[in-house]
């Protein structure tokens, strides 16, 4: 039994290149994913609440909802209040789009995760960017 363990250890030490081989795994870019989710969520939840409150289904459509709602706008810029409403809807749609874009970028442009396993005198070390 002891001999077998010594053999395995010796094999391990003798083949460091194999043990230290780096493996590449793609992971979502969490920074983009989190910031995109937050921006999209915050600027989606307000029109969503309005959609529930006023039974305006179109406002519940992510990103495009506020712009679709603008179909009910005629002479809207005649009143400062309505100007503000229009600006708010457009801004909200733009911010939702920005959040969605960040989220998409974070999910699509994955970050390479480099992991290395290296033997050490006391065992092995695992390192890399996660």
């Amino acid at each position, binding site marked *: 039994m002891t001999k077998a363990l010594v053999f395995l250890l010796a094999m391990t030490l003798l083949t460091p290149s194999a043990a230290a081989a780096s493996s590449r795994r793609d992971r979502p870019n969490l920074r983009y994913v989190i910031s995109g989710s937050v921006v999209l969520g915050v600027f989606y*939840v*307000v029109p969503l*609440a*309005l959609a*529930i*409150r*006023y*039974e*305006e289904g179109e406002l519940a459509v992510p990103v495009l909802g506020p712009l679709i*709602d*603008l*179909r*009910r*706008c*005629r*002479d*809207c810029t*005649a*009143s400062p*209040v*309505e100007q503000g*409403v*229009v600006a708010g*809807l457009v801004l909200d749609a733009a911010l939702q789009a920005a959040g969605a874009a960040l989220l998409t970028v974070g999910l699509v442009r994955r970050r390479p995760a480099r992991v290395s396993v290296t033997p050490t005198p006391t065992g092995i070390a695992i390192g890399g960017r996660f």
Partner: protein
Amino acid sequence: MLTALFAITTLGCRASPPPGATVVPLPDGRPGIGFDDLRFSPTYGILAPGGRSGKLDLVDPATLSVTAIDSFSMAPLYFGGHDQGATSVDVGGGFLFVTDRTTLKLAVVDATKKQVVATAPVSASPDYVRYVPHTNEVWVTEPDASQLEVFSLAGVQPMHAAAIATPGGPESLVIDTMRDRAYTHLWAGATISIDVHTRAIVAQWSNGCTDSRGIALDQARGLLFAGCAEGRGTVADVTHGGMPLVTLDVPARGIDVIDYSPMLGHLYLPGASNATMAIVGVDAAGALSLVGTAPTVKGAHCVAVDDRGRAFVCDPANGDLLVIRDPSPRSGG
């Protein structure tokens, strides 16, 4: 954030229509209509300026079908109140006169073609519009400027003709074509009478309200009714300089726009705060008595009565009209 969302989604939630009421949904009524003025015309039916919806809705009392004149400013969101789009209407000379609070314009609508044929800017945010047949003028109340703006009609085109200062008002407006007078309230419990020819204020009297709101007229009998926001109806005799006749406290709170049925001798006072409309009988001497109440919905602050004994009550949160049949027999006179 969560509190705000909770408030947005729960405050002012839609109420179910009261039992027994027929609901007339108006085109593009959702997400709500900031109703204000409602009128009845024997020719055109119930006239309902559709506020945010961008429409003036004509409801046929016989079939309850709706014809929309789609020519006014339209807004995507509804935040309550009645500051969006068309909010007041009157009929005269084959035309409909409509004021739009978003564009700050008076529009003349060809009632046959159902098209806007002329517009004119108003000096301040318009509240009520009324046609004065004997002078062929259109009068518009502008409370923010404490004035009535008078437009003369050159053909169909309204032209600014004068402004009548009404300090402390004006609130509501009714034209007395038998006496050539216009009556409007001052906010703090008074009513004034204006000669439509000279445009001079010829009388003022206390109307018995703490907070004056709606106005209605029994022209034949010379009885002028006031609806008080605090929950009261009052009568003045305009044939005797506005002599107060009687006041009646009613179980309606938050009264605003009122109406009177000459056919039934009933005065209708919807209370927006407690979702109750008081129906008040007016006897031969002008005395008032409560003949009934009808449940409405919260925010229902305006009413127009047709010639079939039915009251059309606005339901702003749903963008509907509620049709409530008045079961009470004719009162007095």
